[in-house]
């Protein structure tokens, strides 16, 4: 979905200050403080949450209380207890263990997709923006094409075709995701390449590649970082959604999507609610943390911003 730059507000603020004789918006110290405090604390907390999530999920082999997918039919499925913190499911699997191992796959997909789509998107976007021509035309037409079909539907078909594995997910999501980043980078490059310092670089004999790599891309780092973080969230949501719908990963693989898919019946019984709650909690925590981080990066990289 579309994301709103929070800095819009800051932008109009500067405008007010520049206008001669204009009254600046009265804002108490308490309001300013609340605003700053709120933002920075959240970004810091998001960093910590993300870090902890990544460590516990990828360190599941050492941290998880039980071996992966270990089924124990002797235990009665039940809610959280001292022995099973997140309870156990129908197959007698410890949910804490499953959630941690599930996070491995979900987070791996998110991080890998963000990495690959950013790399491809930056390269194509920079070339399209700087040199224009058929690459630029092609990029615009391609993104137009994808605007008229729901992404979920394309993903669904593509995943059936490529086999329902985590690597197929990474490939398909990156293949769709790079276009957004390419468009953002293209827009940035288009405005930066007209600046005087680019002209100066060209006058001193710098090649096109050098101008892009040394002069233009460092100036686009903000939007690139923001979109890379948002790509993590989008990929994690896409994987869990498709898997929940039964179109994605399949057991014996474990992901948050699979756990939520298996817990589908649990929503009609109060005593089994924990089967939805814990994977869902981890999923939302991840997306929230990534979104907050992206938002704060946007502010931090925005020279107009007053935070």
């Amino acid at each position, binding site marked *: *979905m*579309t*994301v*709103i*730059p929070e800095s*819009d*507000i800051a932008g*109009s603020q500067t*405008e*007010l200050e520049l206008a001669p004789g204009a009254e600046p918006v009265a*804002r108490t110290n308490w*309001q300013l403080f*609340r*605003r700053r405090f*709120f933002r920075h604390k959240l970004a810091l907390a998001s960093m910590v949450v993300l870090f902890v999530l990544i460590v516990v999920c990828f360190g599941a082999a050492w941290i998880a209380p039980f071996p992966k997918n270990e089924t124990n039919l002797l235990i009665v499925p039940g809610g959280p207890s001292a022995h099973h913190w997140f309870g156990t499911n129908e197959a007698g699997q410890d949910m804490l263990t499953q959630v941690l191992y599930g996070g491995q796959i979900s987070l791996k997909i998110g991080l890998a997709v963000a990495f690959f789509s950013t790399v491809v998107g930056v390269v194509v976007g920079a070339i399209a923006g700087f040199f224009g021509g058929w690459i630029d035309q092609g990029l615009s037409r391609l993104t*137009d*094409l994808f*605007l*008229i*079909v*729901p*992404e*979920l*539907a394309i993903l*669904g*078909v*593509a995943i*059936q*075709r490529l086999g329902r594995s985590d690597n197929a997910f990474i490939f398909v999501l990156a293949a769709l995701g790079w276009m957004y980043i390419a468009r953002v980078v293209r827009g940035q490059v288009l405005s930066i390449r007209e600046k005087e310092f680019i002209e100066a670089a060209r006058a001193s004999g710098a090649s096109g590649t050098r101008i892009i790599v040394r002069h233009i891309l460092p100036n686009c780092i903000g939007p690139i970082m923001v979109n890379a973080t948002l790509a993590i*969230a989008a990929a994690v*949501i896409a994987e*869990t*959604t498709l898997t*929940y*719908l*039964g*179109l994605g990963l399949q057991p014996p693989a474990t992901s948050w999507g699979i756990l*939520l898919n298996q*817990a*589908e019946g*649990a*929503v*009609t*019984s*109060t005593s089994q*609610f924990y089967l*939805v709650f814990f994977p*869902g909690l981890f*999923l*939302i925590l991840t*997306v*929230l943390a990534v*979104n*907050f981080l992206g938002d704060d990066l946007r502010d931090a990289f925005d020279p107009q911003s007053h935070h």
Partner: protein
Amino acid sequence: MLTYIVRRIFYSVPVLVIASFLVFWGIRTTYDPTAKLRTSRDAARVIAQRRHELGLDKSIVSQWWTWFTSFLHGNLGVSDRTNGDVWKMITHALWPSLQLMFFGIGFALVLAIAVGVYSAVKQYSVGDYLFTGVSYIGIAMPTFLFGLLAIALVVTLPVTWFHLNQPILYSVGLHSTGQSGFNLDYLRHLALPVLTLTVQSVAVWSRFQRASMLDVLNADYVRTARAKGVPKRKVIFGHAFRNALIPLVTVVALDSAFLVGGLVITEQIFSIGGMGRLFLEALSGGDAPVLLAWFLVVAVFVIVFNLIADLMYSVLDPRIRVS
């Protein structure tokens, strides 16, 4: 106006044609309609004969052309799964989906605009922070997870705790058996699917409305109006509000394809037999004719929706003339 509409439709034809070819190629190479013949006796000959009957031995372009021209003639073919007429299946599924879309977009627009305008007018108030916090959670909430949580917390929990005979809001279908039409029963069925479909849209759109309202409120003409002594309420609703709606129209139009994706999830969770369910059934059943028709119908819907959005611009801002 009319020439504009005609020209826009004319422009969208090549996009639609190319999209239909890509979808056709993708689906034809994914699903083999002769897969179930593989176990039959003398498989190689039977399959070759069937492929010839279906025209699969021709090139992909000519296969697509055959399909596309018959589509233009209103012949969408026959379902691989049910042998039913695809056109009938689509029109049958369209009605529940259109209801969800209609009420969903209406609900989301009203709520998002109200929240956005309030947050902008009372910027940095407690209410603004509250809405900001809620919208962050809304944006981070995957549609399907919201649906599951809504069923658990709104339907299951009260029934168990208060020993109700029937839930306050239903989570299956659009009508109880034997009921039809627009009544209380319908609304009790509609509430949760509509909420699930639109939770992300409300969150994002309200943030957008807030940002654009703030932009407008800080514009010179608004300050002039205030300086002339126009009452605040009149400035907000008479001068600012209408202009602040324009950016939202763009966002809503761009999100129409996303909403169709949400429809797939919502209809699956709430067992509503609309376009979303049809897509999932066709996809898991390998029903290529239905999938092809589905993609084309959805693409047409999104294009029409974007056209309506373009026409809305000129309604909101008389300076923008469509011609």
